[in-house]
């Protein structure tokens, strides 16, 4: 078994623990392999990865039971993360609507809009950690690009709602819906993990009183 395999096994076995615990264990094992120099020696010393992980879990459970403050810390963390996410969702929703309106009204200020869209996309991209946001943003920008080009060469805009206007609106809507949807998707996985951690801790805490 090599270092990567060992780490994969303990990561899976420890998945229910808080991320910090997992990261610390992985770091320890990783450095151990490096220092041992020899994979076989390292595996022999650390022992069966499943048992290694189980020992860490047991120790963690004991620690939580004896130290309610630790549980409190994770509870607070969880509440903070939830609040942050709710705020970000609100912010993105509002910004999306705002940008759509902006797109429609600033027909001739394309350069400004272009900058705003790129900025917004990069913020959302980095937040949702989802690479699919980027092509969507670029696609929307291209639609707006072509609308602008269309307007520039169209000197007789008689009706108030022209094709270009429509394209702008579609582009704006695409960004809003796409970005909003993908950020929910990106966040849902994180949310699931947090829920699992929290449930695990709640169960531990309940059992503590039974002891």
């Amino acid at each position, binding site marked *: 078994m090599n270092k990567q395999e060992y780490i994969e096994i303990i990561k899976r076995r420890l998945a229910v623990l808080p991320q910090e615990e997992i990261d610390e264990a992985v770091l320890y094992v990783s*450095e*151990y392999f490096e220092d041992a120099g020899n994979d076989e020696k390292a595996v022999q*010393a*650390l022992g069966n990865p499943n*048992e290694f992980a189980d020992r*860490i879990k*047991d*120790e963690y459970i004991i620690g939580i039971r004896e130290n309610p403050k*630790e549980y409190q810390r994770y509870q607070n963390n969880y509440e903070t993360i939830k609040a942050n996410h709710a705020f970000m969702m609100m912010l993105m929703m509002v910004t999306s609507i705002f940008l759509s309106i902006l797109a429609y009204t600033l027909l001739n200020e394309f350069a400004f809009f272009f900058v705003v869209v790129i900025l917004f996309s990069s913020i959302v991209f980095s937040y949702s950690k989802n690479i699919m946001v980027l092509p969507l943003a670029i696609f929307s920008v291209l639609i707006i690009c072509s609308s602008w080009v269309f307007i520039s060469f169209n000197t007789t805009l008689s009706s108030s709602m022209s094709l270009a206007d429509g394209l702008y609106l579609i582009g704006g809507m695409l960004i809003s819906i796409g970005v909003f949807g993908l950020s929910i998707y990106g966040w849902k996985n994180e949310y699931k993990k947090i829920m699992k951690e929290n449930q695990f801790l709640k169960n531990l805490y309940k059992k503590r009183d039974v002891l």
Partner: protein
Amino acid sequence: MSFQVGSTILDACVLSVLRKKDTYGYQLNQEIKEKLGVSESTLYPVLRRLQKEGLLTTYDEAVMGRNRRYYRLTEKGKEQSTIYYKEWKEFSGKIEEILKGEDDHE
């Protein structure tokens, strides 16, 4: 060996080794294994727990292009290790008395 190294004794040994100098995971394991014959696989949870109890802290150092995490005793850790030593002397003294009894055991 009939006698087992319990968790408290292991804690005390780890603290004592760190009292001499800061060290990193692998080295600590080797030293404990050498002196106690304890399997290295049990050491990580002990280190993690001692860290959470505030008896030791960690710091990172770059070594040959990679990172190495060192363990260092805190003030609280030093105090605890002294307490362990005193308790051990008392405890082992009593056991020695009982086991020795009146015989020479030759």
